């Protein structure tokens, strides 16, 4: 093999970070109300909803990839949305990857936030109510600060899990440099074509990154765990 091409290495790294960043923000926006509802609702069927959210933990990425390919395509709702701005499909696009990643990483964000909401019980909110705080006010000034460790853990896990996504993206991405060729797919490509130097650089970086992320969540958990007691 020839010289190392750093642009070839950097493009997937940047794309992956962008994807994980946008996905994490969307996950917090959509995941928080879901987690709140799951934590506070008395509805009997809420565990069914919780199960749907958690299913990507168990389903193989190929199942999600297969359905996404159909849903994002010209004959699915994704194709209809793409039609609004003159495209045909959401597959092979960054938007498509974001949609896939949000679904795929949802349980990693909802579960810790739900746990955090459940952990402090009804009492703080009742106190807030007696102090005449509106539910909206109580949510922002009581519930969210109390659930901060849950938000942090959820955000870190959601971000990290999106960085590590592979199967779904391989199936709906189309391997387009700068648009859908993320880190994991680039590593796969390098390995398949026996460009092992590049594969080593990226794969080694992922090992270090994963170690740092998991260590950070564990230390975070310890710190908040001790403070809470």
């Amino acid at each position: 093999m020839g010289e190392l091409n750093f642009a070839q290495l950097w493009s997937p790294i940047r794309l992956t970070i962008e994807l994980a960043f946008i996905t994490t923000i969307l996950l917090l926006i959509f995941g928080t109300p879901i987690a709140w509802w799951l934590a506070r609702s008395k509805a009997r069927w809420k565990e069914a909803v919780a199960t749907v959210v958690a299913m990507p933990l168990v389903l193989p990425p190929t199942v999600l990839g297969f359905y996404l390919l159909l849903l994002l395509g010209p004959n699915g709702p994704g194709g209809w949305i793409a039609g609004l701005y003159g495209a045909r499909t959401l597959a092979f696009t960054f938007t498509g990857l974001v949609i896939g990643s949000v679904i795929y990483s949802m349980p990693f964000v909802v579960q810790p936030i739900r746990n955090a909401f459940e952990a402090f019980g009804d009492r703080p909110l009742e106190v807030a109510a007696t102090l005449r705080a509106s539910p909206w006010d109580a949510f922002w000034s009581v519930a969210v600060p109390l659930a901060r460790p849950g938000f942090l853990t959820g955000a870190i896990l959601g971000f990290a899990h999106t960085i590590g996504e592979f199967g779904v993206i391989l199936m709906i991405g189309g391997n387009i440099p700068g648009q859908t060729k993320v880190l994991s797919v680039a590593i796969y490509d390098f390995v398949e074509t026996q460009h092992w130097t590049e594969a080593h650089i990226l794969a080694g970086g992922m090992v270090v990154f994963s170690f740092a992320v998991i260590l950070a969540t564990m230390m975070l958990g310890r710190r908040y765990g001790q403070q809470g007691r």
Partner: protein
Amino acid sequence: MRARLSWLKLPMAALASVMIAATMSTAAHAAEVKVAVAANFTEAVKEIGALFEKATGHKPVFSFGPTGGLYNQVTQAAPFEVFVSADQATPAKAIAEGHAVAGTAFTYATGKLVLFSKTDGLNLGEQTLKDGKFTKIAIANPKTAPYGTAAVEVMQKLGVYDALKGKIVEGNNIAQTYQFVDTANAEVGFIAFAQIALKPGGSRWVVPANLHKTIAQDAVLLKTGANNDAAKAFIAFLKGPEARKVIEKYGYGFVD
């Protein structure tokens, strides 16, 4: 506990004797051969495999993937015994790098490249590529799949590669490329003719052979299979008239 399990003893003993008998009969008559097959040849080789098993009693076990990816696994001691590649370069490399038996490589078929669309009644041709009136064109990864390499050659030869570059989506192998076109996520795609030879519907243009290098597809006996009679029998069968008939049915050509 013992009493509870005693009812299991009889069926277990029966099962054990069946398994021993099965192992012995395998040793005596038939063996297994593990074959790595380039994705474009999937449908054809399944048919050939069934005929092979009927004729010889040997059982072929197929693994499908892109040629480059499969060879990569071979270099890491994958248990494959025969390698059915989609090109000539990779089997040659396998011999040069000491993974395959010298002198056993042979061309079992020449592949046809086809431009395919799921939409019926389109008049596909050179003009389709020159007009470029589509948003996505699917090809197999040209770095690992010979049909992808050929697709790039065609676009380059027609002088449209730079114009179409931004519309290309890559399948990891030719099977995934077909899937992109079959789900209509890509309007058109370069796939192997064999993939759609027996399927009606859609629009197709068989790319003239002078627009790309011949896709000569070689198979080779890997060193892991050098002492396996079933592996040698499979190679022989692949050259034979029964296999040839199937290969022809799927639209492949031959060098001779």
